[in-house]
């Protein structure tokens, strides 16, 4: 926490006005990291933290609760997209104005949230998407970068949405956007689904630089590069079946 200074961080939450902000974190077997992630967010002034424990086999739920988050439990594992939707649904019921989606594995930094919310509060956008490629600070592995940029290119071709990053779990939505975005894919394809919904509902979107810190832990927990092909396959099916 010290590297940012408590005053700046407090202002991060404060600047979003008196708007009610909820941080939604889908988590699956993240007992090692989830505590620090929640404490980091609380230290940064975000009080409404919702962890969706997606049927973890470890102590994710207990660790998250102890760290001060509201924990929703999926009794069986349903995938990251499903977890996100549960958390968003909860935040909407709690009358959230802004909803931030955040990763449980420690890749994201709480200081990235403030600029995302700023993009919403000055009414530039309904959806603020984090991009690791708009800043020099992300240490994205080379192969991963190629696939993510390829994904962004496919978004442009498929949906006409111009992005630099394609699968970033850090984003902020207004209440309106969260209401209109319907995540149907339970698995990792939800990121492309959100882009699809942005295009369909003509939501105003903006990309905001965020720092992604790759660690051995997050690389092991994150999706494999091969998974991109599965996501592309899901995108094609979605396009065909709807």
């Amino acid at each position, binding site marked *: 926490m010290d590297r940012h200074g408590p005053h700046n961080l407090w202002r991060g939450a404060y600047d979003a006005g008196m708007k009610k902000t909820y941080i939604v974190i889908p988590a699956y077997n993240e007992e090692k990291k989830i505590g620090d992630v929640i404490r980091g967010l609380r230290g940064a002034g975000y009080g409404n933290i919702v962890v969706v424990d997606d049927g973890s086999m470890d102590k994710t739920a207990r660790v998250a609760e102890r760290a001060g988050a509201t924990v929703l439990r999926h009794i069986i594992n349903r995938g990251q997209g*499903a977890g996100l939707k549960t958390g968003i649904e909860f935040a909407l019921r709690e009358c959230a104005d802004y909803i931030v989606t955040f990763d449980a594995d420690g890749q994201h930094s709480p200081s990235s949230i403030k600029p995302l919310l700023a993009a919403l509060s000055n009414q530039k956008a309904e959806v603020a998407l984090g991009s690791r490629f708009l800043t020099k600070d992300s240490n994205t592995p080379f192969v991963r970068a190629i696939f993510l940029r390829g994904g962004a290119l496919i978004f442009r071709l498929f949906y006409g949405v111009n992005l630099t990053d394609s699968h970033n779990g850090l984003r902020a939505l207004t209440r309106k956007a969260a209401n209109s975005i319907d995540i149907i894919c*339970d698995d990792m394809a939800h990121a492309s689904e959100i882009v699809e919904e942005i295009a369909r509902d003509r939501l105003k979107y903006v990309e905001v630089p965020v720092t992604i810190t790759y660690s051995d832990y997050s690389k092991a927990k994150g999706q494999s590069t091969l998974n991109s092909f599965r996501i592309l396959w899901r995108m094609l099916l979605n396009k065909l079946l709807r």
Partner: protein
Amino acid sequence: MGFIQIFGVLFALFALSRAVIRYKNKKSTFSSMAIWLLIWLSVILVAVLPQTTSFVANLFGIGRGVDLVLYLSIILLYYLIYRLYVKMEDTKKDLTSIVRELALKGKKGE
């Protein structure tokens, strides 16, 4: 008649009787019994007179009756796989909805 033909006829007769019995016991409707009757009667026809399939195949511009049966089965199989896929997706979605409702229910009134 070869063994496979006799076996085919006997099996078709057996299946046919099952369909009729189910209808008699009011376990199926007349239309579903009629469809099954038609299917098993045509199996008997093909088993006794295999050349009839060639006749039908020629109507479709396919040389051999066996080929026609194969083509049709592949089409049918693909369709059934598709149906199964859609059903499975629906089931998965329903399952997720239940899991989600349970998760949210536990947190009401906080």
